[in-house]
Structures are given as C-alpha cells and as structure tokens.
C-alpha cells in the first residue's frame, strides 16, 4: 500500500492573523493583474463576476423595457416601428429570463456556497470558471445579433412557425438558437458543479438536515436544470437543423409538427421558472430570520416544499398549452397539478409570515426587501393560481394579465430577494456596510414603482389588451392603465438607480462591517469580511443547523467547533465528506488557477460561430474538457508545501487516516459523471419523446418501411457485450490485475469501433435521407447523437488505455476507470432504448 495515498490530517486552532493563515493565503491566492484575472478559479471572484455581469444584463434588459413602455405610454405612439418593437421585446425577455435571472443567483451561490458549507472551494473549480466564461460569451454572442441586422423577433419563447426559416429568414434566429445551446452548456456544467459540491464538500457534521435553505434552493434548481435544460437545447438545436439543413421536425409539410416546439420548450420553461425563483426564495429563508432574531419557522417543511415545487413543476408544462386544442382530460390533469403546486409555495409563504410574526423584527433595509418580496410573491402566486383553471386561462392567455403575473413572479420573487440579498451580504463581499437611509429610499421607490408599473397590467389584460402589440388605438380603456404602467416602470428604474448609487457610495464611504454585522447564524459569518482566498483556516465541524446561535438557542449539549478542525495545507486541499451525513471520507486536492477555462470558451465560441461548417471537436477542445473536470486528485499544477509543524491537542484523536485525492469509486468525478449521465439521459428521453409525439400526430405511414434487423441486431448485441467486457476489465484493476484492465479496455475499444463502422453501413443502406420527412430527421438525428456519444466514449477508452499502459492505475487508484466504464455503460443502455424505439416499436404497431 502506498502510504502517500493516505494521511492523517492535522488539527489546528490557528486564527486568521496567524502564520498558518498566511501560508494558506500563499497557497490559495490568485496572481495579481491580467494573468490572475483570466486564470482565477476562486469561487468568490467567479461569483462576483456572475453578479456584476448579470446585473449589467439586467440594466440592458431594463432599458429595453423602458423603450417599450415609452412606446406604449400613449395610444398610437410611433417611437418604435413594429419590427423594432418585436426585436426589443424578444431581447428583453431573453435577457431577463436567461442572461439575468439565473446567473444572478449563480453569482450568490458561487460566492456563498463554499462559505455556507464550510469548504474552501467548489467541487470543480475550473468547471466553475468555464461556466462563467461560457455564460458571458453566450450573452455577448446573442447580443451580436443587434449588429448583424437580424435580431431575434419571435418572443423569448420563440414559437414555431414564427421562428421558422419561412417566416424569419434572417440569421438572427440562428444566433439565438445556437446562443441558447451555448448558454445551456454553461447552465448544465454549473449545475453539475453545484450538485457535486453539495454531495462532496460539506463541512464535517453538516448532514442534509443542517444545510441552509439557500443551498436547498440552488441544489433543487441545479437538479431541475440537469433535466430541463436538455429540452430547450434540443428544441433550439432542432430548430437550427430545420432552418439550416432542411430537416422536418417542425414542418407539417414533412410530417413534423409546430406543437413539438411548444412541448419541448415548456418542458424546460416551467421548471426553469422555478430554477430562477427557488434560490431566491432560499435567500429569503436564510436571511429573513436573521432580522427576526429567531430560526426560520418550519425548516423541514420549507426545505421539502422547495424540492416538491420543482418536482411538481416538471408535471405542469401543459398549462402553457391549454389553448392549443388538447383533449380535455389531460387539461384537467395538468390543471390540477398546477393547483397542487400552490401548496408547497404557500407553505413557504406561511413560514416566512410566521417567522416575522413570532420573531422580533429588526427593520433594516434587507428586511424591507424580504418583507416586500413576501407580498409580491403572494400577489404573483394568486394570479398564477387563477391561470391554472382551464376556463379562465382560455380567457386570459396571451393578454397583459399573463404579463402582469409573469413580472410579479419573476421580478417580485427574483429582483427583490436579489437586491435584499446584496444589502445583506454586501458587508461580507466588501467589508463595508451599505447606507441604511439610502437603502430605505431605494426600497420604497422600487416597491411603489413596481406595483404602480405592474399591477395595472392585470387591468389591461382583463380589458382584453393582448400582449406583444406594438401600439393600440385609443378608446378601448387601455390608455390610462398603460400610462400608469409606464410611469411605474420609470419609477422602478429610478429605484434601481438608487441601488447602484448606494453601492458606489458605500464602496467609497461605507462603515467597516466586521465579520458578523447582522449577528447571523451561518458559517460565512465566522470569516473576515471580505473572506480570504482560502475561506477557513481550519475546516469547521458542525453540530447544529445554526452554528453561530447555538448558545442562544440552546438546542442541546452539542456545540460546533468553528475555529478548530482540519488544517489541510499540503497544497490546495479541502475535506470531502459523505453525501447525507457529512462524514469526512477523503482529503480532496483541488486544481490551481488555469487559463484553460477561458481558452476553452474561446474555442467553443469559435465553434459555435462557424457551427455550420464545423461538426467535431478539435484536439484543443478535447484537451480543454479533460482539464476542466480536474478536481480532487487530478491537479497537475498543485503547489505542494511541506507539512507545517502544528501543535497537536486533545482533538487530534478525532482525526483519523483519510485517503487523499480520488481514491475509491465515489470520487467527485464519479458523482460528476452521474450528473452528466442524468442530463444526457434526459436529452435522449426528449429526443425519443419527439419521435413518439410526431408519430402520434401522423395520420398513417409514419414509418416508411419496417426496419431491417440484419445489421442492427448483431450490432446491438456487440455493443451490449462491450459493456460486459469493460466491466471485466474494471473489476480486474480493482484486484490489481493491470493486464486484465488493458485487455478489457482494448477489446472494448475494438468492439466500439466495429459498432461505429456497422452503424455507418446501416446509415448508408437506409433508403431515405435526413431531410425527406420527420421520421427520417428523427432517425438520423437520434442515432447521430448516439454516435457522437459513442465517439466520446471511444476517446475516453483510448485515454484510459494509454494511462493503463503507462501504469497510472492500480488496485488503490482507479477512479478514472470506474468513471469511464460508467459512461460506456450509459452509452450502451441509451442504444438499447434507441434500438427499441426505432427498430422494435414499429413491429408492435
């Protein structure tokens, strides 16, 4: 047994001003200047970038909204042409919903998660940086459409056929489509990072019943995104295929169906709505109790309601399609689910009200924003509840009533908690307090402006004003509500301006904050303000849900050890713990700063820009991918430090020998692969849903001829057999048989290559082309996607084979083999589903 695979971590009680802290700073610090700016993987810097970038997009989207409100302030206004108005409302929606609403919450989560969890960084720091760069570049990419003269103009949900080439021939729609696929990559890798961070890097003792609600919110949103984002990425990709290559997914003339777009879009869209509010609700659930001087009422049930909201949210997409002529029974199913979802939302509202009612409120600026949020959430929730009723929805759909509901929900539940959250954590971010006086002005102007702006939209809608009209005639009763709305919108904008002024003034002249200015209860408040690059000198041991309020609450005899714990200073390290109970089970070695996330994003941007001529990933891109997933145990630029002399004390007996790096099967990469598999499985599920949906809409003759099994069946057996072979190799290395691993990997590689060859032959033998009809489009796209996954699997197998040949793996260290084998099993199982769908199901018709 190699002894350096295991270590007993030192226990320390050193404080932030000590020599140990200085050494940790040396290990974790980011280089100054442009070099550090481009290469940093510090979660706090990345979080701050998310916050600033998302806020910049909020301002851009807000300016677009003000333009629209000027246009609609009076009847028959002509400030904007109809074409420009369509572009503005499309970009406004896209900006606010995609480029602002989730990224701003990712900013909070990136900055705060490791601090809340008692960790030193996220699970995949480089992936974190990559996620940010891709987000930034995708946003810039989509805004480039303004400069090429063809801005997207079919609304943020981009319904086909408005967005089809026939009705929208410009390149703007293609930029939107590819930009959204690009953006989806950022969201997906960010989500994987959050999920694995929670599963792996909680402080010792922080079991799932002790994590802050904000963690529950972001975790739920991230898991939801893993399953929802593939739907929209696929919807946009298929649209792009229809537009560029003439496939027939949405073209009725080729057997496709425009409603497929709506299904895919809303399968994503509704969970996305929850993804952009649940973390914000988490902000309130954690911060509001601080100003009520008591814990949140009903933690357990609020945490559950967070998860349940997302779960039910996956079963309500059809309520966006109530007016599309669907059978009545499914409408009633989805209507009842939409009513049911009110229950978990209401639970949270009652919990907040009870917390305020039973607490001793301290009326600071963040409290105002959180209390205002509760009111707006209630109004927005009630109007949503109304539209869950099918008959009423038929009357209200596509009217300004829905616009009012949408803004109460998205602005009210997102912007108010976000601004309140910045007031709350600004002292931690900067070390300065924000101005209370200006803050209260800020709140009242925003709150009054918001309600003045958006409440009259309910009236406009009830009076029959349709959404997305660029002007209206006078005399319909719409003039006054629209004028009031426009005045309110500008007042709201002034409120946002006050907020920005407060930030600038406070950064210059703010009162020093200290480490815990609000007397809050969670772990981030034990660090200095702003926190150092390494977050914690020693990893805290958590014994309760409110580690900083334990003496006050006196829940029991246990006390957290906040300033005594594992030191972990042999390079960038943090402790890995078990998923449910936070038991330490590994010392994670974290990768250092790197340019690769930035360079990888540049490469991807070029790829997306020339997507029509480039189909495969370049060598540089492959290198980027392998680097990004470097985390625990794979850092090549670890700055190793000699273990310091640390005074041992009685708590040393708590520390036991722990594996170092990626030992064992359940490494961070293993969890990351499971997340990737989940999202990829969802992608294929949506593809197969598309197949069955289009088939169900075809009136006879969906499958042109019964598929021949002569090649496909043996090929399927070959691929499934390869799973057994790779498993044989993997079990071999677990027992230390390197030769068996090499033989297994080589055989699997050969079988995979043969599969690719036979599948290519199968494609060649097909009597139809991809563009002939919807069935052919579906067949070639689905099998093509699978082939890409096989190709990725072969690359992984080839890399593993090389590493096995040079002796990188052994009985102790073989996590990469387990991860690669897992991916290969997934590829094989997916093929089984594809085979059953395309080759077997036609025989069952």
């Amino acid at each position, binding site marked *: 047994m190699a002894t350096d695979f295991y270590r007993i971590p030192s226990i320390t009680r050193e404080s932030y001003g000590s020599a140990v802290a200085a050494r940790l700073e040396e290990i974790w610090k980011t280089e100054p200047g442009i070099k550090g700016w481009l290469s940093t993987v510090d979660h706090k810097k990345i979080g701050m970038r998310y916050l600033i970038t998302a806020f910049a997009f909020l301002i851009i989207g807000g300016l677009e909204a003000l333009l629209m409100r000027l246009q609609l302030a009076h009847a028959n206004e002509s400030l904007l042409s109809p074409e420009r108005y369509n572009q503005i409302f499309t970009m406004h929606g896209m900006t606010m919903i995609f480029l602002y609403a989730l990224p701003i919450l990712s900013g909070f989560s990136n900055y705060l998660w490791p601090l809340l969890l008692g960790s030193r960084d996220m699970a995949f720091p480089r992936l974190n940086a990559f996620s940010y760069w891709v987000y930034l570049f995708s946003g810039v990419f989509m805004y480039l459409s303004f400069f090429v003269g063809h801005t997207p103009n079919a609304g943020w949900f981009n319904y086909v056929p408005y967005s089809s080439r026939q009705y929208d021939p410009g390149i703007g729609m293609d930029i939107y489509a590819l930009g959204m696929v690009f953006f989806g990559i950022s969201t997906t890798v960010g989500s994987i990072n959050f999920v694995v961070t929670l599963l792996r890097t909680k402080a010792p003792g922080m*079991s799932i019943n002790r994590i802050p609600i904000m963690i529950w919110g972001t975790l739920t949103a991230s898991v939801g995104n893993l399953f929802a984002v593939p739907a929209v990425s696929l919807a946009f990709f298929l649209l792009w295929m229809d537009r560029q290559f003439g496939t027939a997914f949405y073209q009725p003339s080729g057997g496709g169906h425009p409603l497929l777009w709506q299904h895919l879009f809303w399968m994503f869209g509704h969970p996305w709505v929850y993804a952009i509010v649940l973390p914000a609700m988490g902000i309130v659930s954690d911060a509001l109790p601080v100003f009520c001087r008591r814990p949140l009422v009903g933690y357990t049930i609020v945490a559950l309601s967070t998860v349940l909201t997302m779960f039910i949210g996956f079963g309500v997409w059809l309520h966006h399609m109530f007016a599309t002529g*669907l059978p009545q029974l499914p409408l009633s*199913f989805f209507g009842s*689910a939409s009513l049911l979802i009110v229950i978990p939302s209401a639970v949270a509202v009652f919990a907040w009200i009870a917390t305020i009612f039973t607490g001793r409120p301290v009326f600071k600026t963040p409290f105002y924003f959180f209390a205002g949020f509760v009111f707006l959430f209630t109004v927005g929730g009630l109007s949503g509840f109304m539209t869950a009723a099918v008959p009423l929805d038929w009357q209200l759909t596509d009217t300004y009533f829905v616009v009012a509901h949408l803004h109460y929900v998205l602005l009210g539940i997102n912007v108010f908690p976000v601004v309140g959250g910045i007031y709350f954590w600004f002292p931690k971010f900067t070390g300065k307090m924000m101005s209370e006086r200006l803050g209260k002005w800020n709140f009242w102007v925003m709150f009054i402006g918001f309600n003045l702006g958006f409440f009259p939209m309910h009236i406009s809608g009830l009076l029959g004003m349709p959404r997305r009209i660029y002007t209206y005639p006078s005399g319909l009763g719409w003039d006054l509500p629209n004028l009031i709305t426009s005045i309110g919108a500008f007042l709201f904008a002034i409120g946002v301006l006050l907020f920005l002024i407060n930030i600038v003034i406070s950064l210059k002249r703010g009162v020093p904050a200290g480490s815990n200015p609000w007397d809050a209860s969670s772990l981030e408040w034990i660090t200095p303000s702003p926190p150092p690059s390494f977050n914690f000198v020693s990893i805290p041991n958590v014994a309760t849900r409110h580690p900083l309020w334990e003496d006050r609450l006196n*829940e029991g005899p246990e006390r957290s050890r906040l300033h005594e714990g594992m030191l972990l200073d042999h390079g960038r390290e943090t402790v890995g713990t078990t998923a449910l*109970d936070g038991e330490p089970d590994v010392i994670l070695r974290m990768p250092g700063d790197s340019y690769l996330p930035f360079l990888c994003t540049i490469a991807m941007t070029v790829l997306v820009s020339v997507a029509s001529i480039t189909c495969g990933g370049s060598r540089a891109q492959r290198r980027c991918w392998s680097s990004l997933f470097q985390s625990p145990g794979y850092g090549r630029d670890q700055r190793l430090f000699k273990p310091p002399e640390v005074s041992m004390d009685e708590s040393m007996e708590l520390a036991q*020998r722990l594996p170092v790096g990626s030992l064992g099967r359940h490494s961070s990469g293993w969890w990351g692969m499971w997340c990737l598999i989940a999202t990829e499985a969802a992608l294929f599920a949506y593809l197969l849903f598309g197949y069955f949906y289009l088939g169900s809409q075809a009136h006879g003759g969906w499958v042109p001829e019964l598929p021949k099994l002569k090649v496909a069946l043996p090929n399927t057996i070959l691929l499934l057999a390869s799973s057994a072979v790779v498993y044989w190799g993997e079990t071999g290395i677990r027992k230390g048989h390197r030769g068996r691993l090499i033989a297994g990997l080589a055989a699997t590689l050969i079988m995979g290559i043969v599969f690719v060859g036979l599948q290519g032959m199968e494609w060649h033998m097909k009597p139809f082309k991809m563009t002939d009809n919807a069935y052919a489009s579906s067949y070639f796209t689905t099998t093509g996607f699978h082939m890409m996954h096989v190709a990725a699997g072969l690359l992984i197998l080839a890399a593993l084979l090389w590493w096995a040949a040079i002796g990188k793996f052994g009985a102790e260290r073989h996590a990469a083999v387990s991860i690669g084998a897992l991916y290969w099993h997934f590829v094989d199982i997916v093929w089984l589903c594809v085979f059953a769908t395309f080759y077997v199901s036609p025989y069952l018709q």
Partner: protein
Amino acid sequence: MTAPHASASPEHPAAARRSLSLSALWFGILAAPLAWSAEELVGYFIASRVCNMKSSVGSMSVALTTSPWFAGLSFVTYVVAFAGLWIAIANWRRTREEQRGSGHHLLELGEGRTRFMSMWGLLTSIAAVIGLVFITTQMVAAPLCES
C-alpha cells in the same frame, strides 16, 4: 480498501441510521410522488392515444368507463403510492428514538438526518396520495376527448 471514517461532529447527525435502511427511506420519499407522476404523464399519453381514435369513443365519455388502460394504470399507481405511504409511516415510527423533542422541534430546530428524511417521506406520500385522488376524480367526472 476503505479507510476508517473520522468523527464528523461531537455526535453523529443520524443516530438512528442503523435501525432502518437507506433504501426504505428513499422508497418512502419517492414511491408515492413517482406514482402520481406516472398517473399524470401516462394518463396524458393514454388520453391522447384514445382521443386520436375519437370515432370509436364518445367525446363526452369519461375515462374510467371507456378504457381499461386507465383503470389498470390507476390500480398500479395506487398500489405503489400506498406502499410508499405504508413504508413512510413505518420509517417515521422507527426513527422515533432519534427525536430530541416534539414535532415542533423537528420542524424548527433540526434533529437527526434519519428523522428528517422519514418526515419528508410522510409528507410527500400524503401529498401524492391526495394528488392521485384528484386525478381519479377527474377520470370519473371530466369529459375525455372534448376540447
């Protein structure tokens, strides 16, 4: 080879973890909600299929009387949901020892992780069974194909 776990905190956060299995806890949490999901999504699929053959089914017919598929689906989902509820109740009872105070304490202050998960199971199972009753009511009362 596995390494011994270091102590996580002064007291393990899931004192009752050895008295019931993790799979029982997850079954209690997930079975009934998944049954509800299946009822909704598969019900939608069946309704779409049946209504595509509208000529053979009266447009005002109710689901349970026109298609044995609906009855079969409902039977299976109720069995799974009640199994989930039953396990959830058993988990709740079995983790009683982990409780430090009353249910009030569990909601606000936090107790063991096992107790926490068993309470989740209880709540999700009850909510999902109520959801199933909603759907069954619609199958009995709502027109199937009329749009």
